[in-house]
C-alpha cells in the first residue's frame, strides 16, 4: 500500500499511460501538479508562452503520432486561454487530454479568485469532461479519460482538478493497468455484400476519403482498395496524403478550392464511397446539389455521421481499416477504363495547374521548392488562410500524418505551436510551418519555446501584408470593398525572430530566393524565413460559400 497526493497520483497515472511530454503553464491552482511533475523522471515539461500554445503543442504531438497527448493550464485565465485549442481538437477529432487546476472544492461557486466554470465552458467543445471531486476518483477518471480520448471517434477530454483534490492523500493498493481497448464492430454480412455489389456494379464510382482514414491508420488499405477497383479518389483537407499526387487515381481535394475536374467528376459520379468523412460544407458546397446522381456508401466509426447531412444508401458503422479489410475481398479487380479515361480527359481540359504556375515568384512555386528541399520525410504544419489552401493544393503529400492543419475550426495561430509539438514528437524529422503574416502573429510568442527546445522547426511566412483570404473574399463577394484586411503597418518579422534568439532569413534582402531557401531549410535547428509575396496572389478556383460546387470562380484552366 502506498500513499500519494492527488497530484502525485495524476502524474503517476500519466506515466503509466506512456506520456513523455507535457506542455503547459503553471499557476496557483495547478502548483501541486507542477510540484509532483518536477519529481517525475519520465515526463519532461515544455513551458509554453501562452496556454493556447500549450494546447496546440499537445495537438502537434497527437496529430503527428496518433497517440494521446497532454497539456496543463491553471484555473481561470489559464483555462480560458486553452479552450480554443480544445475546440480545434474537437472538430478535427484529436486525442488531447487537458488537465486544468481549479479553485478548491469548498470555494467553487463563490466567485473565488481565478474561478471560472471550466467544466461548463468545455462541455460543447470536448468529447467529454470531468470535474474531479475526490482524489480517489482520479483512479477511475484518468483511465476513463484516456479511453474516451482514444476509442471510437477520438477527441479531446478535459479534467478539471480542484487544488484541494490535488493535495488530498489517497491510499493506493495498486494502479489501474492501462487497457488497450479495441472496440471492434461487426457488420452484418448483408451490408458488406450489398456495399460490395454496389461498388462492383457502379459505372462511375468515386472514393471520397477524409480524416477518419488517418485516425484508423487505414491509409495503406484505402490506397489498395482504390487501386483494386480503380476508384478515382478525392480527399478532404484532413485526408490529404492517402493518395499521392503522382498516382493515376489522385484527384486531390474536393470542394471550395478543388481542381475543377474534381468537382466536375463528383457531379457526374453514380456512386460515392465515403470513408471517414463528414460531408463538411467546405467539401460539399451546397449539400442539396452535391453528387446529385450518386448513391452513397458511408463508412464511419461515428454512427451520428451516417445520414447526418446526406442520406446514405448503405451505412457501415465501424473502424474504417477493419471495414475496408473486410470489403476488399468482396470487391472485384477492375480497370474501369472508360470512366478513368473520361476523368483523364476532364483533367486534361481542366488541369490542376499549369507549369507557369510553378514559377518561383508564385506561392505554388515556393511551396513546391520547399517540398523538394525538405524531402518526403518532412512534416508540414500550416496556419489558416491562402497559404494553407495553396499548400493543400500542391504540396506532394504521400502518406498520412505528414500534413497538420486546422480543418474544422480553421484556427489562425495553429501552425507554429503545432509544428513545435510535432518536432518534439519526431526529433529526427524536419518540421515546416507554412504560415501567413496574419496567422503567425496569433501565437508568435511560441518562437521562444521553439528556441528554448532547439526544435527543428522552419517557419516560412508567405508575407502578403494582409489577411489574405479575407481580403480575397471581400474582393470577390463584397464588391471589392476591402476593409480591415490589409495591414497598414509593416513589422519586420525576421528581426522579431532574431529578438527571440532564432535564426532568421529575409527574402526581401535577396534576389536568389532558391539559395536562401536551400540554406535556411538545411540549417539544423529552428529558423524563420520571411518571404514577401504579392498581395494579389489569390486562391483559385473558389466556390462561393453556400454555392454548389459546380459554381467555380477563377483559376487558369487553359494552359499557355
Amino acid at each position: 500500500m502506498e500513499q500519494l497526493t492527488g497530484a502525485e497520483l495524476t502524474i503517476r497515472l500519466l506515466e503509466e499511460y506512456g506520456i513523455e511530454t507535457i506542455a503547459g503553464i503553471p499557476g496557483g491552482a495547478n502548483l501541486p501538479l507542477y510540484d509532483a511533475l518536477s519529481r517525475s523522471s519520465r515526463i519532461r515539461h515544455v513551458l509554453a508562452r501562452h496556454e493556447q500554445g500549450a494546447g496546440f503543442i499537445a495537438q502537434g504531438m497527437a496529430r503527428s503520432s496518433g497517440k494521446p497527448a497532454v497539456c496543463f493550464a491553471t484555473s481561470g485565465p489559464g483555462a480560458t486561454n486553452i479552450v480554443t485549442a480544445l475546440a480545434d481538437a474537437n472538430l478535427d477529432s484529436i486525442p488531447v487530454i487537458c488537465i486544468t487546476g481549479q479553485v478548491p472544492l469548498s470555494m467553487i461557486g463563490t466567485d473565488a479568485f481565478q474561478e471560472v466554470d471550466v467544466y461548463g465552458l468545455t462541455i460543447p467543445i470536448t468529447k467529454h469532461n470531468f470535474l474531479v471531486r475526490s482524489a480517489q476518483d482520479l483512479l477511475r477518471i484518468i483511465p476513463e479519460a484516456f479511453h474516451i480520448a482514444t476509442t471510437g471517434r477520438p477527441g479531446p477530454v478535459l479534467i478539471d482538478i480542484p487544488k484541494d483534490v490535488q493535495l488530498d492523500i489517497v491510499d493506493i493498493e495498486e494502479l489501474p493497468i492501462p487497457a488497450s481497448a479495441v472496440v471492434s464492430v461487426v457488420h452484418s454480412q448483408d451490408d458488406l455484400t450489398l456495399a460490395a455489389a454496389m461498388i462492383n456494379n457502379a459505372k462511375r464510382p468515386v472514393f471520397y476519403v477524409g480524416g477518419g482514414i488517418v485516425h484508423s491508420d487505414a491509409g495503406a488499405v484505402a490506397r489498395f482498395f482504390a487501386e483494386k477497383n480503380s476508384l478515382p479518389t478525392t480527399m478532404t483537407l484532413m485526408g490529404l496524403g492517402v493518395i499521392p499526387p503522382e498516382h493515376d487515381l489522385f484527384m486531390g481535394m474536393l470542394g471550395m478550392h478543388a481542381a475543377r475536374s474534381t468537382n466536375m467528376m463528383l457531379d457526374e459520379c453514380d456512386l460515392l464511397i465515403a470513408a471517414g468523412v463528414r460531408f463538411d460544407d467546405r467539401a460539399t458546397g451546397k449539400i442539396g446539389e452535391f453528387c446529385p446522381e450518386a448513391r452513397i456508401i458511408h463508412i464511419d466509426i461515428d454512427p451520428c455521421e451516417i445520414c447526418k447531412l446526406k442520406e446514405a444508401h448503405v451505412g457501415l458503422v465501424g473502424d474504417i481499416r477493419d471495414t475496408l479489410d473486410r470489403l476488399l475481398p468482396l470487391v472485384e479487380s477492375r480497370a474501369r477504363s472508360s470512366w478513368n479515361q473520361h476523368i483523364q480527359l476532364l483533367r486534361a481540359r481542366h488541369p490542376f495547374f499549369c507549369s507557369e504556375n510553378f514559377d518561383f515568384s508564385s506561392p505554388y512555386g515556393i511551396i513546391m521548392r520547399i517540398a523538394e528541399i525538405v524531402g518526403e520525410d518532412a512534416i508540414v504544419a500550416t496556419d489558416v488562410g491562402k497559404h494553407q489552401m495553396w499548400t493543400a493544393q500542391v504540396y506532394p503529400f504521400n502518406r498520412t500524418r505528414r500534413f497538420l492543419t486546422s480543418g474544422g475550426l480553421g484556427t489562425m495561430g495553429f501552425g507554429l505551436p503545432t509544428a513545435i509539438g510535432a518536432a518534439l514528437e519526431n526529433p529526427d524529422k524536419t518540421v515546416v510551418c507554412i504560415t501567413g503574416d496574419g496567422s503567425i502573429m496569433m501565437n508568435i510568442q511560441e518562437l521562444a519555446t521553439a528556441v528554448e527546445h532547439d526544435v527543428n522547426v522552419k517557419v516560412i511566412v508567405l508575407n502578403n501584408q494582409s489577411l489574405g483570404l479575407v481580403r480575397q473574399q471581400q474582393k470577390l463577394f463584397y464588391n471589392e470593398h476591402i476593409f480591415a484586411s490589409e495591414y497598414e503597418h509593416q513589422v519586420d518579422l525576421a528581426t522579431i525572430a532574431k529578438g527571440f534568439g532564432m535564426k532568421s532569413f529575409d527574402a526581401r534582402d535577396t534576389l536568389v530566393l532558391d539559395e536562401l531557401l536551400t540554406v535556411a531549410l538545411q540549417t539544423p535547428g529552428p529558423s524563420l524565413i520571411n518571404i514577401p509575396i504579392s498581395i494579389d496572389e489569390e486562391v483559385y478556383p473558389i466556390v462561393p460559400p453556400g454555392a454548389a460546387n459546380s459554381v467555380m470562380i477563377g483559376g487558369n484552366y487553359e494552359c499557355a
Partner: protein
Amino acid sequence: MSAHNNQPIAVLELLVRNHPGVMSHVCGLFSRRAYNVEGIVCLPVATGETSKIYLQVREEERLDQIMKQIQKLSDVEGVVRYTGDHPVFTGLATYFTC
C-alpha cells in the same frame, strides 16, 4: 401543450450517471443542436448512482440524429423512446394549468 404546433410529441427516457454536470451535458446537447426541449423531469433512481431524465420533445426528422448524439454522451447509459402520452408527463399536467 402542442396547440401551437401539430407535430406529434415524443418522450425520451435517459438513464444517466448521477452527478452535478450531467443535466448540463444533456441540455447543452439539445441547445447547441437547436432542438427544442418542451419538458424535463429528472429524479435519481434507487441508491442515487444513476438518474432518469425524461424529456418531452417534438417528433422531427432530426430526432433520430439527436438520439444518436445522446447515446454518444459518456454519462448516458441508455435511451428509450416513447410516444407523447407517456404518463410521466400526463400525470404532471395538473400542475401546468393557468
